[in-house]
């Protein structure tokens, strides 16, 4: 029954269908911002749609904290869920694969196939583990330009990302202004607030203080800091939802009929968070989680421009689209407004909208009609601007 369900999802007209991840191998030294040089690296990526003759219709999708390259379609017929942004990428969807050639990768330092803490360190012959160097959003963007070169993409029609993904799109606009036509920044911020860093630090401490963490060498010990990862994810989840959204989704519903007034899981919300936390701890590498949250904390493109975001963005040549969500308190509407105001001051082309939603920061992953309508409109206009050169 489940298999049949998959088959029908797979063959739906708006699905990109079966996809096979590919690997880009960079065989030359790659110097990271932290001063360490990787002797080589690999990026795993997927593409959907077809690159046109002028190579003008490419769209880069950048993932957020716990994302990866598998953004749309299915890896195999038996896969239980499609890629993480399947609702947005496909034929007839907001990022329409009949119009655009979509590239989605797993970032450097990730744990889904790209070179990261789980990879073998060529110098030692064993996994990097905690010794994998710190990577920054700038490093990611530079590594992405190498992938783009390899794919024959000189200029992206758009670089799109939510949350940490939006930060990468912003960094692209600043560091490689002639390599993108548009940057779409969704539920984004130009830097984290103290509150955001605080949440990340609690998540990190949950992992670091887990008895099974072993200073990051848990693999060698044949174990995994499951509890730490679970707590980190549970905390993250609470901050990605809104009070209203949680009330609507769970209320004070109980798992079983009546209160047992015991210490076990009683409320639906507890059960949900436990489940999310547990499954995350099985799928995600703790060292990568630490590395990704650090990259988030350090992101602040204005820092090297005298803390002046206007000055930082004045390099940009692309147009911008900034989308935020009313109940997002992790990357609030105000943070997006700061970006828009800086772009106006820097005299850049920018459109922005605020989407009514009860789902907090998670909204950027959900098919909210108003959100998808306006994103479709923007992508349609971009397609018009680059010209259908197919």
């Amino acid at each position: 029954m489940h298999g049949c369900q998959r088959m029908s999802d797979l063959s739906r007209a708006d699905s990109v269908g079966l996809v096979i991840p590919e690997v880009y191998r960079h065989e030359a030294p790659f110097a990271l911002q932290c001063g360490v040089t990787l002797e080589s690296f690999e990026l795993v990526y997927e593409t959907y749609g077809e690159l046109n003759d002028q190579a003008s219709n490419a769209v880069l999708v950048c993932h957020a904290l716990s994302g990866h390259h598998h953004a749309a379609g299915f890896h195999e017929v038996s896969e239980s869920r499609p890629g993480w942004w399947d609702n947005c990428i496909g034929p007839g969807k907001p990022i329409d694969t009949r119009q655009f050639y979509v590239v989605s990768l797993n970032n450097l330092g990730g744990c889904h196939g790209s070179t990261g803490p789980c990879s073998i360190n060529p110098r030692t012959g064993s996994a990097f583990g905690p010794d994998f160097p710190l990577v920054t959003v700038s490093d990611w963007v530079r590594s992405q330009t190498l992938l783009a070169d390899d794919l024959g993409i000189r200029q992206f029609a758009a670089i799109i990302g939510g949350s940490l993904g939006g930060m990468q799109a912003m960094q692209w606009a600043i560091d490689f202004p002639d390599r993108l036509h548009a940057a779409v920044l969704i539920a984004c911020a130009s830097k984290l607030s103290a509150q955001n860093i605080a949440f990340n630090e609690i998540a990190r401490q949950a992992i670091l203080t887990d008895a099974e963490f072993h200073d990051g060498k848990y693999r060698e010990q044949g174990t995994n800091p499951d509890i730490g990862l679970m707590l980190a994810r549970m905390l993250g989840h609470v901050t990605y939802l809104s009070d209203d959204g949680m009330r609507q989704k769970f209320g004070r519903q109980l798992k079983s009929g009546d209160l047992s007034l015991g210490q076990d899981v009683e409320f639906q919300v507890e059960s949900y968070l436990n489940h999310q936390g547990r499954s995350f701890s099985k799928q995600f590498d703790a060292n990568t989680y630490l590395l990704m949250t650090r990259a988030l904390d350090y992101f602040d493109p204005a820092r090297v421009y005298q803390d002046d975001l206007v000055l930082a963005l004045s390099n940009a040549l692309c147009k911008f689209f900034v989308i935020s969500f009313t109940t997002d308190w992790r990357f609030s509407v105000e943070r997006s407004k700061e970006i828009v105001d800086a772009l106006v001051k820097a005299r850049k082309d920018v459109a922005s909208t605020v989407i009514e939603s009860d789902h907090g920061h998670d909204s950027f992953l959900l098919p909210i009609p108003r959100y998808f309508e306006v994103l479709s409109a923007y992508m349609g206009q971009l397609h018009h601007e680059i010209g259908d050169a197919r």
Partner: protein
Amino acid sequence: MRADLAIIADLINPGARVLDLGCGEGELLAHLQNTKQVNGYGLEIDGDKITTCINKGVNVIEQDLDQGLGNFASNSFDMVVMTETLQSVKAPDRMLDDMLRIGEECIVTFPNFGNWRCRVHIALRGKMPVAQHLPYSWYDTPNIHLCTFRDFERLCREKGVRIIERFVADSKHLNRPLMNVFPNFFGAIAFYRLGSRSG
């Protein structure tokens, strides 16, 4: 293009920096971007109108005018435009101050409550006027601060705002001879080009 927008477009220099407050479906900005290469932004609150702007490639920013314009720097635009919106904001006087703080010049258009049709409605029928240029009933109108041309000009005098140009038209945006003689009686809509007192 709407006749009133064509009149406004004529008043804007090529390459100017333009801020359009309540830009609607972005008709004016799209026209100015295509014909005069302006660097323009429009503020709008209505979702469908924002989508229409995006479909036109207009720089539309979702922002509620009643929350103020504090996010725009002083003297950062050549022209700040507000068409048929001044009468529906919470504080038109403060809005005018802000517009002249942000822009070197402003263009404001609004319906004239002193038009003879309005006067007839109130004087003879004892009813709030509903006319072509004021199509709403009193209970559902967004026009919460209606005024006459004379009222507006008095406000400008009090604030020391310089009226550079005024163009009076009927509800179809046509200028007829009598309007220039008795604007506050025969005019339905006015276009004001304003500058700060210092200018």
